């Protein structure tokens, strides 16, 4: 038992101290940039999908630099699944609200008033849709990566 514990700790140390300290500065900056691209999706190139993959790459960078501590990743996995399920459920609720509330009742109708073209708060439902899809794509890609790493760690034990 003790020997097993020692080999696990030796294999999953991650990278050197320099990389870990730099990652503490850079990974939140990448995440903030992903949030910026997602929110300004209706004004400049970007939107839900691009912001989502940039946010996922910040998480992947953090996991790669710290090594895959198996117990920590296993304990945190339920948060990713819950986030993704809630995000796609909210997107469905938004679509059905368009059916119920809007004057022309089609599925996905834009029921929030459209402001002036070029403002930050404009475009009706489009910024809300961007944020929800961004959260969903980020959680999906990160959970794929975490599942792969947990499998590779358990297989080499």
């Amino acid at each position: 038992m003790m020997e097993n514990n020692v080999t696990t700790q030796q294999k999953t140390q991650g990278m050197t101290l320099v990389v870990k300290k730099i990652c503490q500065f850079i990974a939140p900056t990448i995440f903030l940039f992903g949030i910026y691209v997602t929110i300004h999706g209706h004004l400049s190139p970007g939107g839900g999908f691009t912001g989502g993959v940039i946010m996922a790459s910040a998480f992947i960078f953090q996991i790669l630099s710290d090594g895959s501590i198996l117990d920590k990743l296993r304990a945190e996995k339920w948060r990713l699944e819950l986030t993704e399920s809630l995000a796609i459920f909210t997107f469905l609720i938004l679509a059905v609200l368009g059916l119920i509330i809007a004057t022309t009742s089609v599925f996905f109708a834009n029921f929030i008033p459209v402001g002036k073209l070029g403002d930050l708060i404009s475009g009706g439902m489009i910024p809300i849709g961007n944020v929800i899809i961004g959260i969903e794509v980020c959680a999906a890609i990160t959970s794929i990566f975490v599942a792969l790493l947990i499998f590779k760690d358990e297989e080499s034990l």
Partner: protein
Amino acid sequence: MEIYLIIMLVLMILGSIYSLHAKDLLSAVVSYGIVGFALVISFLMLYAPDLAIVQVVVEIITLIIMIAVITNATHEEQKREYNFSNIFYLGTILLFVVVFFIVLARMMGDLGYFGQDLMRMANVYIDSAHEAGSANIVTGILFHFRAYDTLGEATVLFTAVIGVLTILRHYGKKKEVK
């Protein structure tokens, strides 16, 4: 403008030919990265910045996942047998060349020249972009005119994640080892 795109496409063709014939699996994955990044530069030259951002990040994530998969098996020997399969390769290549020329002859008449103004449906979308309210026309198409396709895409991503989590599940195997 067209000459630069031709250079990028020739680079992609050379990279993909090398990637399929490399002896080492790690070299194959790195050459596959060449194909992906040349595609990014092609997207930038064709005035599509949304696609370039997505393609860069997705290519890097794909390379990371592939290298994590092949870390134990990079030095596979490719033994060539010289009895039956060599004739099979030659026959396959000949068949491909014939099919290629037939489809090419059909294709030349229907497609116009590169850069032709073929928009018919997108004119309606561009003219009514004020109704959607977004300055980025691609986002307006994806979330206002064609929001149902975005819902379908989210469903496909969700299903793929469920599939990966089911295939790579590990508990339940420990009882078999005993």
